[in-house]
């Protein structure tokens, strides 16, 4: 089918350890229904490496509910084992979505 929603943007993820306990995951591209699977896979991989995963969203302009669901699920899994999911370099648009959903309770926004 032509309008397959999974055929959306294909984000790129880069993983690198920044502090002893923190794994930094840089995302390039949008986080929406089209890239939710890729985001989930990248976070799963990162969770296996570290209890603290920091997602650098410098280039992300937009976050939809599917991506939000993936972030929340990852954050809950990390929190359950004493870790956490952090977002850094959050754009104003993403910030607005985070504020609107009060998601900062679980997903830690750091400067």
């Amino acid at each position, binding site marked *: 089918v032509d309008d*397959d*929603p999974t055929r959306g943007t294909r984000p790129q993820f880069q993983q690198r350890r920044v502090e002893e306990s923190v794994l930094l995951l840089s995302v390039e591209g949008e986080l929406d*229904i089209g890239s939710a699977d890729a985001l989930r896979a990248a976070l799963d991989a990162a969770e296996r490496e570290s209890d603290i995963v920091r997602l650098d969203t410098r280039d992300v302009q937009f976050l939809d509910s599917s991506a939000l669901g993936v972030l929340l699920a990852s954050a809950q899994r990390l929190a359950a084992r004493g870790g956490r999911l952090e977002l850094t370099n959050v754009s104003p648009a993403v910030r607005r979505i985070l504020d609107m959903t009060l998601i900062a309770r679980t997903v830690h926004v750091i400067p």
Partner: protein
Amino acid sequence: MGVAGSAESVIAALDGAPVGFALVDRELRLVHANARLAEWVGGDAAGRLMREIPALAEVPAQVAERALAGTPILDEHVSGRTGRPILLNAFPVLSDDGAPTGVIMTLRDMSDWSLERAHLEQLATIASRLAAAATPEEVAEITADAGIEAIGASAAAVLLVRRSGTPLEIASARGSSAETLDEWQRIDRDTEVPVAQVVRDRAPVFMRRDDAVRDHPAVGTPSDRHHAWAALPLESHDEVRGALALSFTDAGSIEPSERPAMLALAALCGQALERASLARDIALANDRLRLLADASDVLSETLDYERTLQQLAELAVQRLADWCTVTIVEGGEIVDVAVAHADPEQVALVRRLQQEYPQDPDAPNGAPAVIRSGRTEYIPEIPDELLVAVSPDERILGILRDLGLRSVITAPLIARGRTLGALSLVLAESGAMYQPADVELAEDLANRAALAIDNARLYRERSQIADTLQASLLPPVLPDVPGFDVAARYRPGGDGVTVGGDFYDVFPTGDGRWLVAIGDVCGKGAPAATLTGVARHTARAAAMDDPEPVHVLASVNAALLRTDTANDLRFCTAAVGLLEAGSPSRIAVARAGHPPPLLRRADGTIEELGINGTLLGVYEDPELGSQKVAIGPGDLLLFYTDGVTESWWNAGGEQRLADTLRTLGSDVSAADAAAQVERMALAGAGSTSDDLAILVLRAL
């Protein structure tokens, strides 16, 4: 000139001849040898016994002795110890009283026979050309050329049996008039003509003019030009593949000595035909694979299977059949959905007949029978009785006979164990007949078609189920809210078969107030639909108890947390407004992770309503609050889901939405306003794959 002089001159002539000439006495001692023989034996050997001369030791003593005994030896091939082939003639020399006194011999070294060698070389050349031929047609061309150039015929034709059971057809011809070729283009194998006879008997026929007239009257009067003919079967070890016909102007051309070259040519040709036909079988197998691949491409292009089946039928007609029809069972009826033939007029004729004479589901043959049994029907050669049996009347029988239907395969369309229809492939005017290998191909094609039909039907069914389910999640009709003009738009995103996660609702709370709700469940499909159902129905129930927006959202949150969902996190965003009509009217709005509803004042200013609250279904202790505003006449309330602004994410969707609201006139109807907002959303540069829901209330 005297007799003795005459004898002298014979000996002189023999001395200069290009053959060896010897006179031996009773003891087989060489009395005289001509120059050629002297050269051959390496010097003058007169006086020596034959068996002592190495070159002549080849001639077995008993042959010379036979001649000495009085028997002339004519054209005897001898080859002695060194293997050198010699053509020997020997005549006894008799004394006056008739007693043999010696032998005169001529010896010809056949290994030196340049003409023979040329023949062999020609055959070798032909063999190598034939070995390089890729198709039966090329083999036929090379063989016909060789018939003229190497064999010396004035006309040559190669006739091939294309498929078992089909007539002989001229594949290549040289030196014949166009009329002759026309007349003999196709020859049934039971005809009493030499080429048909050699195919039947697998033995060559050689004939002169008299033989032809006597033995083959069916051929008619032979042309004056030719005086001898040869017809040779072209066979490889397993079967006869055709015949080689050669015509000669010289009656001597079919003398036994001339025949080995023709037989050799025919044998080489037969082997080359076998090889080429194997190569063609492989190419054919590749073609079939390609046809199946193309069929799969055509069938997967669209879900409109009536159209793709017609394309499939046309594909089959290009490569595999003269006619192709696809018949399917639809609503209990047998319907011919596709018919194809190279000639559109023929198709139109058959289409008319199909309308006049619908398929009889109980017919003993053809598509109805195949659909009932689920088994392929393969009729390699359609007998006339079958045409009579299937024709309802004389007119149809006449048409069917005119169509020249010869061979048919009808394969069932089976998917997931059910027979959906049948695919018929028919050979007619091309004259060919289906072989058992074609049955497999037809069944492969039918399987692919069946799968395409099944997929398309499943898709349609799912699409209908999705529509029904979606409708159950939305109010069928918006209620009349006193003092307000209300309208909604809903558009499921994605592929049309997946139930969306957006919902909205407007209902009275029983105390004169109205609850307005909009929400968006994360995800799609059945799990999302379950949560949507839970959210909507919980909101209604909770509002009966206490319609305060925070209470309604908290109830939904608790219900969602209780709802077991699969491993993926499912949550919901929602905005709820409690509307109280009056002077002025008021609305209290609470939000849970949802974009703020917008209030466009009659003067064009835009306000965002509600305060940020936590997503529903995530936290046991939600953080929710409400905000109340007054609404004046002409004010317009917009509740929406993020599908509206999402497509504009890179161009400020919320800003654009606010602009859209501002441009609406103060007297715009709720329906027009909702439609405008939807247009704006759909005009977004990004994909519109997300659902979108829009709810507009305008204070009158």
